């Protein structure tokens, strides 16, 4: 111990006289370890602190401050008191010493042992002896930090200083320019305002010293070393300026003045600052400035070309109106809100009556902004505006004008969260409910599609607010919708009608069951009377069918609509030829849309399970048996397109079924397909010897039903029961897998063997890992290998299809065998018969398949399997490419482009650079499909190009430019899009190519295809703007 403390004078000497900076750390270590005390340090410093040389005194203080910085927490109150007295005194010393003194003080004020009264005395000496703005950046920051710590720990004492504290701060901060220090200063000012410090006569001074930075215009230095963005400063300053109503008299005139500025950012900042005042101010602060503020806001919104300025202006108006809405009304004074809104109405209302002119829109937006501020303001505005708009609407005859008026009206009937009527208040729209409805209904019977769509939007909005539509009005609305469904063939209108029917049916189902659904049913089953032109009746039917799906929002409605759709399928099955294949498919799509709703509604799922699915399956089976008996009587339900459309119906229901129903369904399906068990199907008239999974070619109409089996058994959810993952048990899974394997390997009907392979893969993907799975896999893979290796085999394509699907199933779940399978696929790239199929199969492996092995049918899909596949295999591909003979190379390029194309964008960016030369090579490959695939993966990359691209630009440009005269139109279009994207690269990199691009793009301007010309025009237009004044 003694030995340790004996070292101290030596260390001090080396630091002070020897100027060895590292000794400070040694001393600090010593103090921390308890080897010597601060008192001993001061004693050791003794002479240096009192030296007549400022240099020496400086070093002495520096050492002490540096040690204190680390060790302030261990000081006693007495020590702190003595040290503070010393430091306060040193503030008067030579300027060279001041930085060290400030550091020491900064450390001391953080001490919890700070004696009472010392905060005040420190501040007094600080404000008295130091001129803050003549200090360096770091020392100024020291001062601000000291103020912040003292405000945290000694608030009471600082408040005792009264306005002197504010005055001292104002003096200290006046002229600050460094952004880091400004953030600190803004924080102090905010504390002063929010924590109730006494501003009294210095309110204006504090405002002045802060507001001189408004509006902030700050561009951070390159690379932004301090990490301060302009937005940080803006928000910090805004919090100060809008912090107290006492600034109102200074701030509001300043805002009005800054709004006159030509700088757009200044306008936006001013408007946003004004909006921030709203919640803090009362109407008294605003009163004198309202006319000025209003005319500025109006001018900005009327004249601006910028959406930012407009939305900031509207938000400011909402905020002002909300503020005035809070004022308490007294009997003798006028209502400030009413006075203000009258001003707004006076300037805007008359523009609403000129629906052809430009200002109708900004006026409507302003009024809507004020209207949405509060219940009271919406009451005042709608009372004046709605009658005027409704009058104007009925006096105008032109559809375009009526549409504008109705569009404006729509903005007023849409409530905002703050204008919603509270409990006990009635909707502001109630008085106008009758006339609003009649305006909407009159618009619905007009012939203009635009007007109809707008009317439908208003109807939706009215329908969503309780009490605005009476029973009879709902019925009229439903009749209008029915009429539109039956008669209107505009796609846009149909979309709007579907949305409206969906929204209204949720709230008023009874009108739909009693009126709309029966009417549509009649229409669907009415025989087409006269063939006006052959597509018209079919389109009406399809609209009816799709409308049935749109209104199936509640279980009660589903029970009405789904049987109608089923009836269509059953009459199509019976072979009454009145339903076309297209119509039957669209019925399936509608059933699917309804089935999707089972996700959120158990009742719908149960209804499908009990009624719809058995009937569907029965119909499909009858159709299959029938067509086998007599091949000329083939019903729509044996067609591949129809069956494929039924797959998602069954799969989305099964994906949403509860555990017990799911198990029941699984058992029914499996026993039907394995054993021909038909007892659960309706109208049980089936032969007893059904074998659906047999592969004789004549029975393809039966074997293809395996796609329905897939839809069922591959879609069941996992359920968590008592935190155990519970899977729906598929009965007799091994026998099932065996039969599926047989079917997929031996069938000659492509749809049958592909569906069987998918079903097999879907089951494998979900099957629990373990011996059973491994054994099943081993058996199947052996068979696949043997078939593939036998080059004369007729079933190589089937085996390959099964291989690809199993590979996908295993890849998704990260099964260890998946690498072997993908290697097998890669080796087949050289196969003369299967090479091209193998390349295309990579697209299947990497993309989501729509009916099986995806997340919505609860497959086991690990995240980032695509990246993993890419990282594991891209090298193999590149090697394969390099070693392949010239005519085989394109297969590899095709495979590569499929993989890269399906990678997530982020991965593309990082992985692409090493592959770029290869992809550029692929652009030279004569195969259109390869070119197209590469172009479509290049285009998104070019939006945000990796640096590696810049060295390849020359090659890229020449390939792309030559592809603009390709013989395939899609290639020309894709190439032009890439060239368009290239114009957004940094100017200096692409400017050298400008003349060449413009010259070459002149010829696609005269392309024979319009779609190509369109791309050429937009690309060439952008390239003209590049490097040209006013362009880019």
């Amino acid at each position, binding site marked *: 111990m003694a030995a340790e403390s004996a070292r101290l004078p030596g260390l001090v000497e080396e630091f002070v006289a020897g100027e060895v900076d590292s000794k400070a750390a040694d001393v600090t270590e010593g103090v921390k370890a308890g080897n010597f005390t601060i008192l001993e340090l001061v004693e050791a410093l003794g002479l240096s602190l009192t030296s007549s040389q400022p240099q020496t005194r400086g070093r002495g203080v520096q050492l002490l401050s540096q040690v204190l910085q680390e060790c302030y927490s261990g000081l006693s109150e007495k020590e702190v008191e003595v040290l503070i007295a010393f430091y306060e005194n040193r503030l008067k010393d030579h300027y060279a010493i001041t930085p060290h003194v400030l550091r020491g003080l900064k450390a001391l004020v953080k001490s919890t042992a700070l004696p009472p009264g010392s905060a005040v005395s420190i501040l007094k000496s600080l404000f008295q002896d130091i001129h803050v703005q003549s200090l360096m950046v770091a020392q100024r920051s020291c001062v601000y930090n000291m103020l912040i710590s003292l405000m945290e720990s000694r608030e009471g004492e600082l408040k005792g200083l009264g306005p002197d504290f504010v005055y001292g701060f104002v003096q200290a901060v006046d002229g600050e320019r460094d952004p880091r220090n400004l953030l600190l200063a803004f924080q102090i000012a905010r504390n002063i305002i929010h924590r109730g410090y006494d501003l009294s006569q210095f309110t204006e001074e504090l405002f002045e010293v802060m507001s001189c930075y408004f509006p902030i215009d700050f561009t951070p230095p390159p690379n932004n070393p301090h990490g301060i963005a302009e937005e940080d400063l803006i928000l910090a300053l805004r919090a100060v300026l809008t912090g107290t109503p006492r600034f109102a008299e200074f701030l509001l005139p300043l805002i009005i003045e800054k709004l006159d500025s*030509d700088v757009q950012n200044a306008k936006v900042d001013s408007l946003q600052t004004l909006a921030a005042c709203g919640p803090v101010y009362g109407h008294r602060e605003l009163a004198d400035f309202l006319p000025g503020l209003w005319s500025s806001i109006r001018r900005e919104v*009327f*004249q*601006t*070309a*910028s*959406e*930012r300025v407009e939305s900031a202006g509207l938000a400011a108006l909402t905020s002002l109106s909300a503020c005035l809405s809070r004022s308490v009304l007294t009997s003798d004074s006028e209502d400030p809100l009413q006075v203000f809104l009258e001003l707004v109405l006076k300037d805007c209302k008359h*523009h609403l009556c*000129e629906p*052809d*002119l*430009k*200002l*109708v*829109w900004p006026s409507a937006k302003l009024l809507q902004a004020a209207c949405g501020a509060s219940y009271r303001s919406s009451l005042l505005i709608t009372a004046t505006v709605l009658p005027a708009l409704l009058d104007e609407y009925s006096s105008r005859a032109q559809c*375009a004008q009526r*549409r504008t008026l109705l569009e404006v009206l729509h903005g007023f009937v849409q409530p905002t969260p703050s204008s919603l009527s509270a409990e006990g208040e009635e909707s502001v729209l109630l008085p106008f409910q009758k006339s609003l409805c009649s305006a909407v209904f009159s618009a619905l019977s007009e012939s203009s599609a*635009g007007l109809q769509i707008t009317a439908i939007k208003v109807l939706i909005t009215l329908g969503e607010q309780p009490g605005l539509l009476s029973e009879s009005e709902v019925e009229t609305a439903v009749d209008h919708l029915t009429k539109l469904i039956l008669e209107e063939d505009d796609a846009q209108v149909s979309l709007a009608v579907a949305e409206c029917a969906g929204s209204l049916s949720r709230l008023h189902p009874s009108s739909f069951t009693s009126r709309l659904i029966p009417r549509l049913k009649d229409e669907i089953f009415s025989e087409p009377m006269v063939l006006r032109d052959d597509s018209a009746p079919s389109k009406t039917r399809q609209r009816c069918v799709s409308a049935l799906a749109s209104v199936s929002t509640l279980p009660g409605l589903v029970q009405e609509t789904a049987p109608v759709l089923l009836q269509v399928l059953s009459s199509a099955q019976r072979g009454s030829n009145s339903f076309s294949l297209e119509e039957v498919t669209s019925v399936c799509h509608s059933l699917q849309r309804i089935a999707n709703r089972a996700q959120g509604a158990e009742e719908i799922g149960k209804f499908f399970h009990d009624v719809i699915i058995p009937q569907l399956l029965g119909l499909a089976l009858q159709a299959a048996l029938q067509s086998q008996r007599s091949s000329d009587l083939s019903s729509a339900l044996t067609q591949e397109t129809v069956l494929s459309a039924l797959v998602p119906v069954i799969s989305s229901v099964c994906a949403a079924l509860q555990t017990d129903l799911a198990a029941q369904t699984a058992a029914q399906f499996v026993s039907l397909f394995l054993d021909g068990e038909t007892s659960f199907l309706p109208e049980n008239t089936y032969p007893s010897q059904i074998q659906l999974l047999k592969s004789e070619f004549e029975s393809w109409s039966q074997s293809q039903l395996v796609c329905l089996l897939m839809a069922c058994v591959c879609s069941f959810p996992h359920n968590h029961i008592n935190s155990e993952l519970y899977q729906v048990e598929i009965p007799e899974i091994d026998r099932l897998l065996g039969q599926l394997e047989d079917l997929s390997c031996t069938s000659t009907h492509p749809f049958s063997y592909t569906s069987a392979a998918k079903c097999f893969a879907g089951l494998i993907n979900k099957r629990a890992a373990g011996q059973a799975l491994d054994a099943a896999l081993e058996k199947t893979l052996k068979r696949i290998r043997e078939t593939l290796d036998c080059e004369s085999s007729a079933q190589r394509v089937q085996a390959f299809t099964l291989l690809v699907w199993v590979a996908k199933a295993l890849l998704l779940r990260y099964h260890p065998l998946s690498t072997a399978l993908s290697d097998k696929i890669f080796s087949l790239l050289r196969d003369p018969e299967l090479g091209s199929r193998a390349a295309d199969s990579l697209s299947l492996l990497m993309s989501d398949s729509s009916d099986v092995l995806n997340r919505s049918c609860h497959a086991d899909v690990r995240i980032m399997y695509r990246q993993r596949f890419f990282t594991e295999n891209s090298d193999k591909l590149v090697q394969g490419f390099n070693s392949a003979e010239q005519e085989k190379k394109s297969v590899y390029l095709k495979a590569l482009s499929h993989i890269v194309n399906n990678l997530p964008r982020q991965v593309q960016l990082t992985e692409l650079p090493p592959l770029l030369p290869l992809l550029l090579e692929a652009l030279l490959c004569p195969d259109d499909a390869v070119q197209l695939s590469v172009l479509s993966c290049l285009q998104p990359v070019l939006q945000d190009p990796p640096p590696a691209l810049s060295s390849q630009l020359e090659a890229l440009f020449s390939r792309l430019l030559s592809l603009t005269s390709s013989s*395939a*139109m899609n290639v020309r279009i894709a190439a032009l899009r890439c060239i368009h994207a290239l114009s957004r690269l940094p100017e200096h990199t692409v400017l050298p190519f400008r003349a060449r691009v413009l010259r070459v793009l*002149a*010829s696609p*301007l*005269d392309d*024979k*295809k*319009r*779609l190509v*010309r*369109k791309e050429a*025009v937009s690309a*060439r*237009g952008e390239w*003209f*703007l590049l490097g*040209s*004044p*006013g*362009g*880019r």
Partner: protein
Amino acid sequence: MSVTAARLENSNPLIFHRAAERLITTEEQDEHLPDPIDDREIFDLIRSINDPEHPLSLEELNVVEQVRVNVNDQESTVSVEFTPTIPHCSMATLIGLSIKVKLLRSLPDRFKIDVHITPGTHASEDAVNKQLADKERVAAALENSQLLEVVNQCLSNRTL
């Protein structure tokens, strides 16, 4: 927007609805059928040009209309009439120039392009038409970097 610093000449102009996007037909998607350049195609080229002073397109201000566009693909001629919003509009030459430049950049050079004011809709119709028809004056105007800047702004997709 450097031009709007002063007060707008016509602060509350008539606004027209935009036509819907052209629907893509099956013929257009067929590799082999040629699609001739038609009026609508030319109109689609110029309708989205920005007005020099309003944040609106020439179509919304009804300065250009499809009926006032005539193209003959066989003879390689295009004629466009445009209608200034007010008869004393000082922007007429600029608007005409923008239309002309847009067509020059977007059409194959076999076309003879004629851009002029709808007869009877502008006070100094003849003077403006003459300027727009004079190849050398158009070329000279585009040498002027300030003019070119305004024209380019009219032709660029607004990003405000």
